[in-house]
Each structure stands twice: as structure tokens, then as C-alpha cells.
């Protein structure tokens, strides 16, 4: 496939820095980056951690920034094109990354890549996602306006989570037998549509 890593000026610079990093440290760095890649808008490293990294890798603030961004970019491109590990390694060596560093990238990609692709497939733009389904079946015996009811009613609890929050919003909906049957029939139609896709 066509190379998606072009040897731009910033890539050249980043490569120089990366090549100088100790292999073990680099391996741990790339593993950490790929773990957090699916979280949009979240920093991979806290400010404190970045300061420690600067010392550990003997890089100043800008250099570290460049290294982290470039590593993330390489991995994002790998995900986007769903590249094969060997192809990735070749492309990286093509921009003069040392073979040992290129191997770190391709090995990490080979082991953690598929999981990352799955996670990203499930990332969507929808503001809320259904995360939890719970229910309760009640037998209503009476209410203010009606005695001797004995009518079954179900309460469906839908736990919705906003993409950028940890808090789950609970929506409670009440159904009598007919209403629940109507819902079920509609869900069956949706299922039919999903089945027709495969």
C-alpha cells in the first residue's frame, strides 16, 4: 500500500529524537500511548508525568511534545488504514527510523492494534448511549381513581451515558401489556433490518 508516512521536516526531527531513546523506555512509552489512543481529547500523560518523561528521556519540553505527537500520529494512521505490522515496519524504516524502534512500533501494533480498532469502531457521534437495561414487573392493585385493578405493569429502566461524562442518566418508562407488546413489535422490525445487513 502507499506509504502514509511522509518524510516531512517534523518527521525528520522526531525520528532523530526517537532514535536516541533507550529501547526499553521507548517500548513502554509506545504501549502507553496506544492504550489511550481511543480516548478523544484526553491527555495521554499528565503534566507531572510529562515532566518526569523529559528527565527520563533527556528531552526538553518541545522535543518530548514532538516525540509524543509523532508517535500518536503514526499509530492513528496505522489504525485508519488498518495497516499490516510488516508494512508499518517497512514504512517506518523508510523514513529512517532505526530498525529496533520500527520493530517496537510494529510489535505493539500487532498485539494491541486489533483491540484498538474494535474500540474505535464503537466510537460514535451520538450524544448518549444506552448502557444499561433493567426492569421490574409490577401488579398494580389500585390507585386513587380505581380500586381492584390487578393490572400488570412493567417499568423499564434505561441507563444512558453521555459520551464525555461518567454519570449515567436513568430513564424510567412505564408499560402496560399492550404498550409493551407494541414496543416489542417495533423492536422486531429493527431486528429484521439488522438481520438484512449481514
Amino acid at each position, binding site marked *: 500500500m502507499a506509504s502514509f508516512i511522509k518524510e516531512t521536516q517534523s518527521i525528520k526531527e522526531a525520528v532523530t529524537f526517537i532514535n536516541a531513546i533507550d529501547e526499553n523506555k521507548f517500548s513502554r512509552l509506545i504501549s502507553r500511548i496506544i492504550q489511550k489512543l481511543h480516548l478523544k481529547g484526553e491527555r495521554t500523560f499528565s503534566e507531572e508525568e510529562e515532566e518526569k518523561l523529559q528527565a527520563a528521556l533527556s528531552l526538553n519540553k518541545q522535543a518530548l511534545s514532538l516525540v509524543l505527537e509523532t508517535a500518536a500520529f503514526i499509530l*492513528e494512521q496505522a*489504525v*485508519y*488504514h*488498518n495497516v499490516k505490522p510488516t508494512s508499518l515496519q517497512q514504512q517506518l524504516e523508510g523514513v529512517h527510523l532505526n530498525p529496533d524502534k520500527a520493530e517496537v512500533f510494529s510489535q505493539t501494533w500487532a498485539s494491541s492494534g486489533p483491540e484498538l*480498532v474494535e474500540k*474505535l*469502531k*464503537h*466510537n*460514535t457521534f*451520538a*450524544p*448518549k*448511549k*444506552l*448502557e444499561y*437495561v433493567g*426492569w421490574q*414487573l409490577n*401488579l398494580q392493585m389500585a*390507585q*386513587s*381513581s*380505581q*380500586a*381492584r*385493578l*390487578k393490572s*400488570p405493569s*412493567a*417499568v*423499564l429502566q*434505561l441507563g*444512558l451515558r453521555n459520551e464525555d461524562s461518567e454519570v449515567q442518566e436513568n*430513564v*424510567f*418508562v*412505564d*408499560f402496560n*401489556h399492550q*404498550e*409493551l*407488546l407494541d*414496543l*416489542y413489535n*417495533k*423492536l*422486531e422490525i*429493527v*431486528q429484521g*433490518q*439488522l438481520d438484512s*445487513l449481514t
Partner: protein
Amino acid sequence: MSASHTKDSSFLGGRIPPEIDSMSKNLKDVDQELFRKILKAVVSALEGKDCREVMKSIAESSTIPQERLSHIVAGMYRVLSEAIRIPTSSLKQEAFREDLKELRIPEDFITDFASVVFGNRRAALDAATSRNDPHLPTLEDFKWRVDVAISTSSLARALQPSVLMQMKLSDGSFHRFEVPVSKFQELRYNVALILKEMNDLEKRNILKIQD
């Protein structure tokens, strides 16, 4: 139930409510036209409509003093509200009429009462009164969409189906959310499970016993 059984108690319970008691004492001065006017207003009130204007005009056009009129209206309201609380499967017209006869309510008025309780507007009346009862919101509108994401900014080839749902509830709230396919299966399974449990529940004998 046969007419020759011993009725244990009136549909009004063991003790007759005071307003019904005083109503029956005052009904003898009421002619059918006035009775029907009041009945119409009382039914309106049960349905939740504002009846102040109607009641005012009834009070003004009648010769009956206001205090006695208020006893009559209160009594009629109570009779009807107690009667419609009980499902028609439990309270039969015969029993209802007998109970009212025992309160010495004139036969014509009993017929008028019965036409409200057992007539074809009963269902609408029930629906109107139960609207005020506490309940969790119900589903008023349900819309859905099945999407397949072909490509995203993170993946050139995603090919991931997902379901988008939109629910409008009876309390006015609106929820739009995505349902991953696995969660959709869970939802569908659970709804089917509740339906099965409901069916089992409805078949059980305890629900068939008439009370």
C-alpha cells in the same frame, strides 16, 4: 350474582358517607330537569373540567337555597366517584341500583346515575380520572434508525451497524440515544422476557377470582 342473595354491604362500604346521606334527604325537592343539569355538571367535574360557571348558573336559576344545593351536589359527586372507582366487572348494575334504592333515592334518578356509571361514556370517564394518578411516564412516541458507519475520522473502513432511538415520553421529556447492537439484543431479550412473565401472571388463577 342472583337477586335473592343477601348483599353484605353497599358499594359505598359499611358506613354511608355523610354527604350522600344528606343528599338523599334533600332530593325530594329536586325535579328531574334540575337533577339532570346537576348530573351533567358533576360528570364534567369528574372529567377534570372547570364547572364554576355552570354551577353558578344552576344556583342562580333554581329556587333551592344554596346550602341545600351544595349538599345535593356534594352527594351526587360522591356517589359517582365511588361508583366509577370499582371496575364494572365487580359492581353490577343490579347491585348498584339496589344500593341506591336503599338510600331512598327516587327510581328515575337511579336510572340517570346508572346511565353514567354503566353507559358508553364510562371508559372515557375512567381514562380522565386515572390521568391524575401518580405514575411513571409512558412511551408516547418511539422512532428508530439503523445506521451503518462506513468510514469515520479514525477508521477508513469501519462497517459498524448501530441503532439510533428516539423516545418521547408522556411527561414531555425527549431522549435520543444510540444503542450498540449488543445492547439492542439485550433490550429485545428483556422485553420478550417481561412479556412472557406478564402472560404467565395473567394466566394465574388468582387473577381470575372475582372480588
